[in-house]
């Protein structure tokens, strides 16, 4: 079956695992907002914390780099474009291109923020079961019954559950096609068609089987309520996160 990604939940019993998932969602929302507003000093504080959290979660940096290589590449491109298009004191120039000092700095800050936010998401996703995230999202959506929180919750759960399955299908099909020398065909449109269409068809079949299997197990409107356990630590963490977010965003 599917391989697990760095973002997949890891079993454990740390304080981060035990924290109420609603508090985790509030915390990452607050911290993300603070980080997006923060300047260099705040970002230093946040970086220190996130390095600590990543070590605490024991995630392999090399695997993260490998899985997020396209995202990192995109961030680098954002930085480059920022550096080129922002007017200001010129650092160096080459023919029509000139790199400005403010461009390099603002670009760096933007990318830095996003990297911290990605790691923040990572620390939550490796310590929280999808089931808990799903329940927390459902809980926050409860005041908006017209959004049918229950269905949205199920959709989130299934999405997380099935992304690895679809990726595995894609990898298997790709391997089978390479075994028949698809690489000799240079036309990318052709390659996309022979891989994309069967994959899409298989994904629909998977979805169809899944629906039937869920129906056979009486999936309907109601479900047993999620067992919340909001404790003292959760309250302390919540207050701590509010303070921390204000520190990060104002310094």
């Amino acid at each position, binding site marked *: *079956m*599917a*391989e*697990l990604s760095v973002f*997949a*939940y890891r*079993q454990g019993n740390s304080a981060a695992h035990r924290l109420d998932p609603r508090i985790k969602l509030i915390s990452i929302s607050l911290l993300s907002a603070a980080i997006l507003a923060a300047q260099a000093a705040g970002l230093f504080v946040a970086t220190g914390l996130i390095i600590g959290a990543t070590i605490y979660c024991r995630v392999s940096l090399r695997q993260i780099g490998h899985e997020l290589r396209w995202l990192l590449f995109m961030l680098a491109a954002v930085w480059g474009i920022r550096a080129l298009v922002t007017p200001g004191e010129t650092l160096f120039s080459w023919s029509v291109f000139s790199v400005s000092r403010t461009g390099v700095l603002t670009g760096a800050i933007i990318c830095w923020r996003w990297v911290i936010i990605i790691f923040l998401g990572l620390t939550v996703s490796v310590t929280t*079961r*999808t*089931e808990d995230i799903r329940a927390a999202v459902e809980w926050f959506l409860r005041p908006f019954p017209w959004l049918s929180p229950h269905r949205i919750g199920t959709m989130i*759960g*299934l999405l*997380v*559950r099935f992304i*690895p*399955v679809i990726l595995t299908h894609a990898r298997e099909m790709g391997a089978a096609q390479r075994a028949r020398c698809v690489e000799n065909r240079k036309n990318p449109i052709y390659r996309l068609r022979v891989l994309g269409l069967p994959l899409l068809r298989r994904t629909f079949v*998977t979805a169809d*089987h*899944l629906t*039937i*299997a*869920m*129906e*056979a*197990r*009486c*999936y*309907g409107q*109601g*479900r*047993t*309520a999620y*067992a919340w356990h909001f404790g003292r630590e959760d309250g302390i963490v919540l207050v701590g996160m509010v303070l921390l977010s204000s520190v990060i965003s104002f310094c």
Partner: protein
Amino acid sequence: MNIIEIKNITHRFANGRSGLNNISMDIARGQFVVLAGANGSGKTTLLRHFNGLMTPQQGVIIVDGVNVADDPVRARRTIGMVFQDTDTQIVGETVYDEVAFGPENLCWPRSVVNKAVQTALDQMGLVHLSDQSPHLLSGGERRRLTIAGILAMNPSVLVFDEPFANLDYPGVRDVLRRIVALHQEGHTIVIAAHDLEKVIAHAQRLIILSKGCVAADGAPNELLPSVEDFDIRRPIELSFGHAVQSWLN
């Protein structure tokens, strides 16, 4: 008393193809039934009628005295169904969540759900894997997980669609041993299979489907000599004049 009664059902697919043709059968409570037939003979289609996942154009299905069309949810609680493909029926992120899915859908109180999950995991020998991700289980363990997922809902009939597909020899024996134990505990068992050798030694009744019709229905010993007429391989022991051997010995 019959737990499942099927009266003259006919199913035609949306594209006009005929799936089932005037099928009737009664399955007694506690019976161990093997439903055999070549690929495409209609086994899966028939099983999906048992609990209202598909509806016939003609005929009725009665489960435990109630018409399935009137109360499909009741039929789904009475009949637990294990599908052929494990990948597409496991919805939980952990073994525990997967088994809890059914009981939670029945809105049982949390404590009852926990108890049902523990019992089902224990019966399938999965307690030690409770927090594991289903991705990381072996083929046999994953098959057992799908069985635990329906056992937790406490059904009286267990229906298996090709339960031995993609299993190695130890996997087949492991799953078979647990199915036989469930039968001894009093569950009614229906197994759909395209080959008989793995399971027929334990069956009390053999029903053969061919092109959407019941081609034969009776005691395994009587039907086995002629199964090759319906594109099903005859277990090899019969050619040497022996009785079929259980895979558990």
